[in-house]
């Protein structure tokens, strides 16, 4: 076991720290969605030009080509520098990119990965449907092969950033006689194709971050299929595994930073809010340690079991606990959109974290059945 920087780690950390100090945008992210998209893409481009986009992505596709250790250092310094939230780049950087690295062919990688890293392409994820939420394998949006195209008809829902996206990771049923996770195909859908219609949905937090997406005989080139026809489930699972694990490291560190900020504001107060935040301070370190352990085991090539689901569950419950301690303890400031509106917005937005990427109950089933070997329900 080892925590201190070794070899070139310290040198890399110092370089990263200096670069972030000089380049992190000082203006806040605009609240308007289109302006927010531009802000996110400009910041992504700046990271690319600085040589820090995709620290652990392969160099031949525009990444830096370093290891998980450097990626970890980058995330730590990123949060320490108070750099912006990843914004609408989330799906491209955390899901689509890693999936393409794992499963796409050379042409697909050469086209898409540099565009993601350069801030030229926003992605969304077309998995959930009205009848396929936690039970993703029951999805019904169909794709029919017609010559050199897959013709897609159906509906997706809860698609985050669909209104801003250029491309989508789309999971469709290409074998009409198949059941469950067989006969599915993972395909790259260009969101500007004729027949794609996006209708934003207002969330309880007053944002339109997710949408319904309708497909009316959308013709997508077969060359966009990733991993081969009928192999969509395994391609999709590669993505979800990442989403539940390493992809959330930045969110975890941001949560830790939020706890520190709120605790600092309490000063010398000795009340229930302070006590709750003090406990959360300890738990945030445990969360970080769980992630370090998972990344370390991954670097050793060990089977990670359900570690990613455990971390996801721990993070999402800690996030909500902290938000609720703060907002419930803020009295009137917790219910008015006043000077401290950020705590209210954060609390309302936080309901999604135990729902998205597999609800907390689905995570518990995964941990119980796949991790602990308990019998299926």
């Amino acid at each position: 076991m080892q925590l201190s920087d070794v070899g070139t780690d310290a040198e890399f950390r110092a370089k990263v720290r200096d670069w972030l100090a000089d380049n992190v945008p000082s203006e806040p992210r605009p609240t308007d969605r289109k302006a927010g998209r531009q802000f996110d893409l400009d910041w992504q481009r700046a990271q690319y030009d600085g040589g820090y986009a995709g620290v652990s992505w392969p160099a031949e596709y525009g990444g830096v080509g370093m290891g998980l250790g450097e990626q970890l250092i980058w995330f730590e310094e990123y949060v320490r520098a108070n750099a912006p939230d990843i914004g609408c780049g989330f799906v491209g950087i955390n899901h689509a990119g890693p999936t393409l690295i794992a499963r796409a062919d050379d042409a697909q990688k050469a086209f898409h990965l540099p565009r993601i890293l350069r801030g030229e392409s926003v992605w969304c994820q077309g998995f959930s449907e009205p009848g396929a939420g936690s039970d993703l394998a029951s999805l019904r949006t169909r794709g029919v092969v017609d010559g050199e195209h897959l013709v897609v008809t159906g509906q997706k829902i809860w698609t985050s950033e669909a209104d801003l996206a250029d491309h989508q990771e789309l999971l469709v049923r290409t074998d009409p006689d198949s059941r469950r996770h067989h006969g599915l195909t993972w395909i790259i859908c260009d969101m500007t194709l004729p027949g794609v219609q996006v209708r934003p949905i207002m969330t309880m937090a007053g944002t339109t971050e997710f949408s319904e997406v309708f497909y009316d005989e959308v013709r997508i080139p077969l060359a966009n299929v990733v991993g081969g026809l009928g192999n969509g489930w395994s391609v999709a699972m590669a993505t979800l595994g990442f989403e539940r694990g390493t992809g959330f490291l930045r969110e975890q560190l941001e949560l830790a930073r939020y706890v520190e900020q709120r605790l600092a504001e309490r000063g010398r107060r000795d009340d229930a809010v302070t006590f709750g935040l003090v406990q959360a301070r300890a738990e945030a370190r445990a969360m970080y340690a769980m992630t370090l352990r998972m990344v370390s085991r991954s670097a050793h090539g060990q089977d990670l079991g359900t570690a990613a689901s455990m971390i996801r569950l721990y993070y999402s419950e800690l996030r909500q606990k902290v938000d609720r301690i703060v907002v419930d303890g803020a009295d009137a400031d917790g219910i008015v959109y006043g000077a401290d509106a950020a705590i209210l917005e954060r609390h309302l937005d936080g309901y999604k974290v135990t729902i998205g990427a597999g609800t907390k109950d689905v995570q518990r089933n995964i941990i119980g059945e796949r991790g602990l070997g308990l019998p299926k329900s």
Partner: protein
Amino acid sequence: MIDLAEGDDQLTVGKTAARLLSEQDTTPGAAAALWRQCADLGWLALALPEEAGGVGYGVCMQIMLFREIGRALAVGPFLANSLAAHAVLESGRTDLLDGLVTGSLRAALAEAGPDGRLRYFRDAEPAGILLVRSADGELHLVDVALTADEQGLPTVDPAFHLIIAAADLTDAPALPTPARDHVLGAWQVLTAAQAAGIAECTRDMSVQYGIDRVQYGRQIGSFQAVKHRCADMAVRAEAAWAATALAAVGLDEGLPQAGFDAMAAFAVASGAALVNSRDNIQNHGAIGFTEEHRAQRYVKRAQVLAASFGTTASRRDGLKDAPSPW
């Protein structure tokens, strides 16, 4: 790069300790024999420097041992002797070293309250030397002969009595600051390791019972109410062990956040041991409520561990007042 996974030598020590403890009688009645055997194997000198007759490992290796001690509910002053041996090297009382390492001299970990009285847990055998944490957080070695027992109270765990004693610390020199911080950190981290062992063991007991026990014609582990409780136990156990490992590495490498991480490990792991051991009773139903069943012993040991460093209020203040660990 950063590495928080156990190395091969750590895993070997953990497995060896687990095998030994599984082959031994770990009930309180057989504690004297177990104590002698573990001392003979060098458990108490694991982290002492080689020039002092130790094995030269650090806290990272000790957590592997103490996790198994927690899991096995072993009784004996393993932690007290290990920490006291470290303290005597730093305080010039090296005449005590041999007894502490061979186990012929038994130590206890005591805390002085604001009233000046010492409180410490003791098993069936009397202690000869106390490692005392004073009310202002200093560490002193005090001969038991210089204290006067005022009370010995039975605790929830039949293996331990709580001794309340009067003592005068004025003539006992305090440990130098770096050694004090290291020993206080190790005290919390190795207690956390025992608690993590309990959190893991009770998780495993519940999972096994969920597989073995059939009601309504089904294994009860197939019911989500039971399955999800087991999943939460698994997450708590993982958090407890990860926090313990993080703090152990921090102590061994002398990192500035190690003091905070030791407190965090104690808080997270002792909480995990309490909740998991209690949920384990629920998962077992009526059999878990019996004296005969092992489940209740974990609850009681978890309570003693959670009470073995400071008070709820002092631990909370410690976590609050520490500088940011990030």
